[in-house]
């Protein structure tokens, strides 16, 4: 063995030995393992049922119903219209959420005092704790069936999420730049606009694009409760067992999600470069 090899294979003596695990740690790990085993044992999971010849035949028969997708021109045109409707719902919902989230974030970041901060954080918690589906159910009663209710449902939930993320982004900005501008005689608004907002903006735009990606998927789900778009078409054709048509809608959803993912990734990369 050469000298360098010997040095590399020799045990390192410059690091202290790792701390010994206490008996309590081992007991805790054993208890966690026992809980996992007990969880599986207590549930009536019939793994074998997935792999019986009957189950495999049923699945094959069900899935083969989707092929080939319905590619007739009228249906493709109809799917394309729903595709745009879903895209528009997610884009407008996210835009409205970002517009509402920014002023909420200013108050939520303590820019308007402690009382406003606590009150706004509570409002943001409520907005984002209620899932889009529940918002949609409520708004369908108010706005009727269609994309309007879906768009507003996305906007309400996402405003809660973006408001919180924007507020955290503003609070996490290094404060000295704004303080230094204030010291140099800038008014509070000018110091905020020149120093703090530009530092937080790339992160805020990145959050908004990421939520847009999420809202594409959410918009498709909201369609199931009657809020328009591809989701509504999917529910309709599945409920009538028109599997080729449902397959076309599912493919349109896949294309939409892939396109928005790619666009969002490229935009975020450009913003954070």
């Amino acid at each position, binding site marked *: 063995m050469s000298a360098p090899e010997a040095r590399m294979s020799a045990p390192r003596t410059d690091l202290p030995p790792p701390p010994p695990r206490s008996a309590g740690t081992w007991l805790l790990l054993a208890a966690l393992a026992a809980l996992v085993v007990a969880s599986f044992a207590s549930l009536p999971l019939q793994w074998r049922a997935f792999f019986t010849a009957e189950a495999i035949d049923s699945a094959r028969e069900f899935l083969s119903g989707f092929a080939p997708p319905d590619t007739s021109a009228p249906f493709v045109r109809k799917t394309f219209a729903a595709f745009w409707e879903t895209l528009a719902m997610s884009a407008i919902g996210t835009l409205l959420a970002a517009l509402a989230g920014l002023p909420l974030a200013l108050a939520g970041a303590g820019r308007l005092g402690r009382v406003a901060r606590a009150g706004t954080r509570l409002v943001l918690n409520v907005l984002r704790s209620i899932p889009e589906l529940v918002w949609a159910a409520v708004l369908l009663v108010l706005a009727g069936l269609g994309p309007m209710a879906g768009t507003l449902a996305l906007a309400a939930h996402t405003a809660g999420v973006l408001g919180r993320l924007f507020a955290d982004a503003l609070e996490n900005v290094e404060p000295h730049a704004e*303080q230094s501008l204030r*010291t140099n005689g*800038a008014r509070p608004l000018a110091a905020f606009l*020149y120093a703090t907002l530009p*530092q937080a903006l790339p992160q805020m735009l990145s959050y908004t694009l990421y939520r847009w990606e999420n809202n594409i998927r959410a918009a498709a789900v909201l369609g199931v409760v009657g809020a328009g778009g591809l989701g509504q078409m999917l529910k309709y054709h599945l409920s009538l067992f028109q599997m080729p048509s449902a397959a076309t809608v599912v493919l349109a959803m896949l294309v939409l999600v892939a396109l928005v993912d790619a666009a969002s990734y490229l935009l975020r990369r450009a913003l954070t470069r």
Partner: protein
Amino acid sequence: MLELDQLTKSYGGRAVLAGLSHGFKAGEFVAIMGESGVGKSTLLNLIAGLDAPDGGRVIVDGTPMSSLDDDAATRLRRTRMGFIFQAFHVLPHLTLRQNVALPLLLNHASPEPAGAMLDAVGLHGRGEDFPRQLSGGELQRVAIARALVHRPALLLADEPTGNLDPDTANGILQLLRSETRAHGAGAIMVTHSHAAAAMADKVLLLTSSGLKLA
């Protein structure tokens, strides 16, 4: 041009400044030294009107700072004072030219002199660079250019060489000295460094009993 009259300031019941009085002449370069916690940065904040004294007065050009509301104090800082900090505080998303032009824009003046100011501090041709492309010494040069571009009467510097190696610090101090002289500005520099203090016209020692010549 600057008069401190019986200034007192306490934090949590502990007196930091107790009846401090001193006069500063226009164009004078003064270094203030003292132990940590004795109140050097507090004194700079009181002079700038960023903090209010518990008692006594800070008088700038015959005007007591205490008589000014927040807007007027902001305006006074913007037009009559410049600041340099230990950690530079240059805005990362603006070019060097935009950073230096900020005090001019805040004063609704033309940003034109920013380029010449960058030349004066040895950053010729770097106006379109961003702060991330600069070393610590170069960043402090930008801070000096930004502090002097609007021709303030008084420059306040809080440990301006605290983050720099001795050679770079020496270059920055000489630049600070020559540029304040060229602009006819006075300067009050808080420092722990004897080498930095040696560049000043006058060195004052801040102790619990007040300011005295070192």
